[in-house]
């Protein structure tokens, strides 16, 4: 973990210290290396404090610590939010090093979905990043009356039927969505998150 310290001298030129750029630079190189190493497996996330979600990953309840069992459509009950982590179906490794990998699943009403939404749903189950784009808390409630997803920290609301668009509250951008599909009966990651998970730095 690195700290940045701005002396008056450092802020005099451009209002920013040098340290964040240096850290950012190192991160970029790291990402590039990870990206190269992972390109063969169509990796769509990055190591470290970034989301780790790979096409083909199955999903497991976020409370599971070992021996993941892939979630199926029937595990996502109507009206309930299920929080999950992706896992590699071959190695059974759960990608839970970062909260940014956490996924929210809800069983939507297919009659309310437009064609685009239907395409990214699997058996009526819709998937989003669970990390609120405001202050990083878990979006973990689905309000029965309005059909909106709710973050408990500061009451940001997102519309699952409208690409996770902000419906109310302080969140500055939509909740990123994740396309999923069925492999047999297992909910399976079908593409990358629509945008980076988490709150702006």
């Amino acid at each position, binding site marked *: 973990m690195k700290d940045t310290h701005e002396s*008056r001298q450092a802020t005099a030129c451009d209002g920013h210290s040098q340290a964040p750029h240096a850290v950012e630079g190192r991160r970029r190189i790291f990402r590039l290396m990870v990206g190269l190493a992972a390109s063969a497996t169509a990796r769509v996330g990055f190591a470290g404090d970034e989301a780790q979600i790979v096409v083909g990953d199955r999903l497991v309840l976020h409370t599971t610590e070992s021996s993941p069992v892939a979630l199926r459509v029937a595990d996502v009950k109507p009206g309930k939010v299920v929080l999950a982590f992706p896992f590699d179906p071959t190695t059974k490794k759960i990608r839970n090093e970062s909260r940014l990998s956490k996924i929210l699943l809800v069983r939507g009403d297919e009659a309310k979905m437009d064609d685009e939404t239907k395409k990214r749903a699997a058996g009526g189950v819709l998937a989003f990043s669970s990390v609120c784009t405001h202050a990083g*808390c878990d979006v973990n409630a689905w309000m029965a009356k309005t059909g909106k997803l*709710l973050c408990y920290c500061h009451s940001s609301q997102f519309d699952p039927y409208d690409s996770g668009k902000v419906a109310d509250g302080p969140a500055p951008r939509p909740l990123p969505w994740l396309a999923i599909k069925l492999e047999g009966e297992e909910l399976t990651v079908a593409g990358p998150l629509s945008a980076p998970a988490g709150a702006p730095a």
Partner: protein
Amino acid sequence: MNRNVKNLLGALLLAPVAVLAADYAPVTDARLKNPEPGNWLTYRGNYAGWGYSPLKQINANNAKDLTVAWSFATGLAEGHQAPPIVNNGYMFVTTPGSQVIALNAKTGDEIWRFKKELPKDLLQLHPTNRGVALYGNKVYYTTLDTFLVALDAATGKKVWESKIAEWKNGYYTTVAPLAVKGKIIVGISGGEMGIKGFVKAFDAESGNEAWAFSTVAGPGEPGGESWPADTSKNGGGGTWVTGTYDPETNLTFWGTGNPGPWPIEGRAGDNLYTTSVVAIDVDSGKLKGYHQYHWRDAWDWDEVSAPLLIDTEIGGKKVKTAVHAGRNGYLWVLERTKDKMNFLAAHKYVEQNVFTAIDAKSGRPTYDPARIPGKGPTTFCPSLWGGKDWIPEAYNPDTGLLYIPATNNLCAELLAPEEDLTYTPGGLFIGYPIPDVLGSLRVGKNAGKNIGEVQAWNLKTGKQVWNHPYKGVNWGPLLTTGGNLVFGGGTTDRMFRAFNATTGAVVWEHATPSGVTGIPTSYEIDGVQYVAVLSGWGVDAQRMQGGLDAATNTKTNVPQGGTVMVFKLRK
């Protein structure tokens, strides 16, 4: 830019800093015990937690002539709650996002700024910070990722950082540390996420942990029998407001949060030492006394505000008290001794319908069973945010009055608990569905009249002396001064106000850029008295207003953004 010009600019900009750095006055135990009136060295100005400045250049007669001396934008949104702490020309404020800014207290020029780089996947339930502690030549503060950080006061360079607890398990820190006798004492947040609360002390020089006191008694420990089985493991009992200190007994007093999860099923017993005040020996970290304000909380009534230590007379008898305006709606007056806390009196100060009696000897309340949520829809007053949340009261030894920033006439309704609550590290562990919690506010029978209040109480008589009502909420911490004044903001109209401390009359008000939820302080430089406060609405003030808007079908927008506001008398 030409290198010479750049060097020259750098030298010019650094020059005043160098002068100031040489002037930094080390903060000693003697100064903390008897703080000079011109400085504001601690969270509440003195160890007793009074929020009182003896300065009297600004007084009830001339406060109408207050004007802005300078202001400074922090560049950050969300809740700004920290007191501007001042030591010989240096002002230190903390902000959301775990930053510390050192300013020239006379001009508002930035001397340095320290930013803790926070983990990208950190969740921020309460993006705020309540200020620094000063000791020796260092500045101490806690961070959202649960570190205690020591900085060089003159330069802002980090000296050390110590991990307080693991944020991934729901522990986080927003509390201003307390510096006493070579120790830096901190509390903890995370009661909503299944933490086990504590107060911890660190060595001021090395950053090594000196002791830890668990506010939740475990199996086999004294008080452990008040928790069934292993429920104490995730029992809550946060300590997110700075404690007070009595040098005479060497005890530090901390308020403790509510037990978790909220539904009481499964945690039969008193759940010690939650919703209590604990008196801890500063040298050993051992518990020397406690008083539980209410047992087995079911209402989210965190009693985290530390009691004010006030030596007064009650019924003609001199008594050393510890006074706390409870979130449970009662004003508690306790006697503090070297090894015990004794109940003296409790006065209802806002609408409260849960307690049916309070035992005259022990102070233990009896509950109306119909007001204990858990099985089905239950209404109770005050609301989850209580009669007074974290925002501090103030005591003025000149008027002899205690001032309370209160929330009256608000109630709550909780529906059925969640059926399938399981603890997961770092996950929410409340026990009621979130939409129900956020939509729990109900207006009380007099809410149409007013909600927020500034109350003044005479502790000798146990009577309320004056009450200034606000139509809406009051989230304004209070300052009182030797000039017969009380200062506070906290309303959605962005105002910062001065009251006549004796009569409660508003003598001055000023609209700030955002709402004021910061702790006001006062200091003096070159013979001029200043009053300083952070403006910056957010966290629970915003959250409760959202709930109130939902309950009353209104929409209130308080702009966000932090500003240090500093006032002095117009010449």
